[in-house]
């Protein structure tokens, strides 16, 4: 046996389609890039600072947790970077540095790593973090207050806050074009609707995210807003407004589609997306928060394991042969 050739042996299959997590992560970041660049372009260096800090600290936290839990270093898969980038996209450009650091800690450590790392988190880490920030430091995510020193040449009032406080009269202040082009104040990466849509379509076409979730989420938002609008158009804004403001688009393409906290079967995906959309508008219209996307998706994340029990029959199941 001594002079035998030593082959590799493993179990079938011996082929792989060469997809990889890092490729997926980089594709998501690529898709998010238009919106981020637009944000940096609008809000200048502070926005760049938040993005850079967020991405880097997310990776550092991941690295620290890898060492603490004595596991393989996993920053190479790019998932921490994605979490950091998405978190930055949800924050306003003026976010203080310590909030960003705590935010990435909450996302990477509390949201993901204590559950055992990627794939094990029951909720979207980015959303966990942003939700906790929302509860703790309300002022930070009050975009009107946060961006008070900016004047970018367009109507500097955060649409959803305006809607909540001032009623539907404000809707006319924002044209669809402006909303699509991000001509309103908001978080760094969530205002440039067109960029987000392009990124989302790219991801769907590449098979990186599940179209069912995005589409049903948008449909849920549209329908609910539409129904509210019909019932009392004085009080509740129209569907288009809800679709293009707040975190709706980034939620549909980047947040609700996070893998480990969303369903994989067809019908559950539709329910998940639609319910998240419904809840989003519900919270915006009658709930306590200005934007409901975050909590709506979190709520559906929680329901995900239950939803995903709805699945097609496996081959040969439930068949009785005489």
């Amino acid at each position, binding site marked *: 046996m001594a002079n035998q050739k030593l082959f590799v042996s493993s179990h079938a299959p011996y082929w792989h389609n060469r997809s990889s997590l890092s490729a997926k992560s980089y594709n998501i970041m690529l898709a998010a890039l238009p919106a981020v660049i637009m944000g940096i372009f609008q809000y200048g260096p502070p926005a760049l600072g938040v993005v850079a800090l967020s991405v880097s600290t997310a990776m550092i936290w991941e690295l620290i947790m890898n060492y603490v839990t004595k596991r393989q270093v996993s920053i190479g898969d790019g998932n921490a970077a994605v979490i950091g980038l998405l978190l930055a996209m949800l924050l306003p450009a003026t976010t203080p540095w310590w909030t960003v650091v705590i935010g990435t800690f909450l996302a990477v450590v509390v949201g993901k790593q204590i559950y055992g790392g990627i794939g094990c988190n029951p909720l979207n880490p980015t959303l966990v973090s942003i939700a906790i920030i929302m509860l703790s430091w*309300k002022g930070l995510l009050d975009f009107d207050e946060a961006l008070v020193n900016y004047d970018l040449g367009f109507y500097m009032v955060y649409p959803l806050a305006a809607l909540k406080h*001032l009623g539907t009269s404000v809707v006319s202040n924002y044209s669809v074009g402006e909303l699509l082009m991000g001509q309103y104040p908001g978080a760094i990466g969530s205002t440039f609707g067109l960029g987000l849509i392009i990124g989302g379509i790219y991801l769907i076409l590449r098979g990186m995210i599940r179209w069912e979730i995005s589409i049903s989420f948008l449909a849920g938002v549209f329908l609910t807003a539409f129904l509210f609008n019909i019932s009392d158009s004085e009080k509740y804004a129209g569907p288009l407004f809800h679709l293009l403001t707040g975190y709706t688009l980034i939620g549909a393409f980047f947040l609700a589609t996070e893998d480990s906290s969303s369903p994989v079967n067809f019908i559950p995906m539709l329910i998940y997306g639609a319910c998240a959309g419904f809840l989003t508008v519900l919270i915006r219209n009658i709930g*306590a928060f200005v934007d409901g996307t975050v909590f709506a998706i979190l709520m559906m994340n929680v329901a995900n394991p239950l939803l995903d029990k709805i699945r097609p029959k496996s081959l040969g199941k439930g068949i009785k042969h005489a």
Partner: protein
Amino acid sequence: MREMLRLFIAVVVFSCLSGGVLAAIQNVTKERIEYQQLKFVKGPTIKNIMEGCSNDPLIDRLSILDEAREMHLFIGEFEGKRNTVAFETFGKGFGGVMGVIVGVNLENDEIIGVGVTTHSETPGVGSKAKTDPDFAAQFKGLSILDPFKVKTDGGQIDALSGATISSRGVCGAVVEAGEIYKRLKPTIIEKMKEKQG
């Protein structure tokens, strides 16, 4: 059967005894508890509202039945006249029920002060309803019979920033106070007379 009886007696004796013991303790502490309740829950707020009164409103109080509910009304003596009355109503806040004491001048139905007693609002946000004097001061001098609303609801009260719901809760309580006041005003005056007489 004998066994059963033994068990039965044990339970009965135990519950009888504990009932008795508790009754005894309750008897001893009853007075003190009542006073404590007033002193700590409503006392500070009442004092605040009735600043400058010459009596102790906690002692000079009336109990009136309002739709099967017992209401405590605290009488304030200003410039020798017992012309002010304060009582508690409740509104729904962000974290639950909040108690609001409203002081009213019986002569002109004007609010002399509003204060939050119990609440479970978010510290630093909704809790400002209790701590922020500017917020309460908005009510001062308005007529109790007016409807109160925060500005976003089309009313006259500036909501606390970030705590619209808490503000709404206070307004609701004051509105309710107005209704109670309307109902009870005759009885109050009557009772006060009785007391003085």
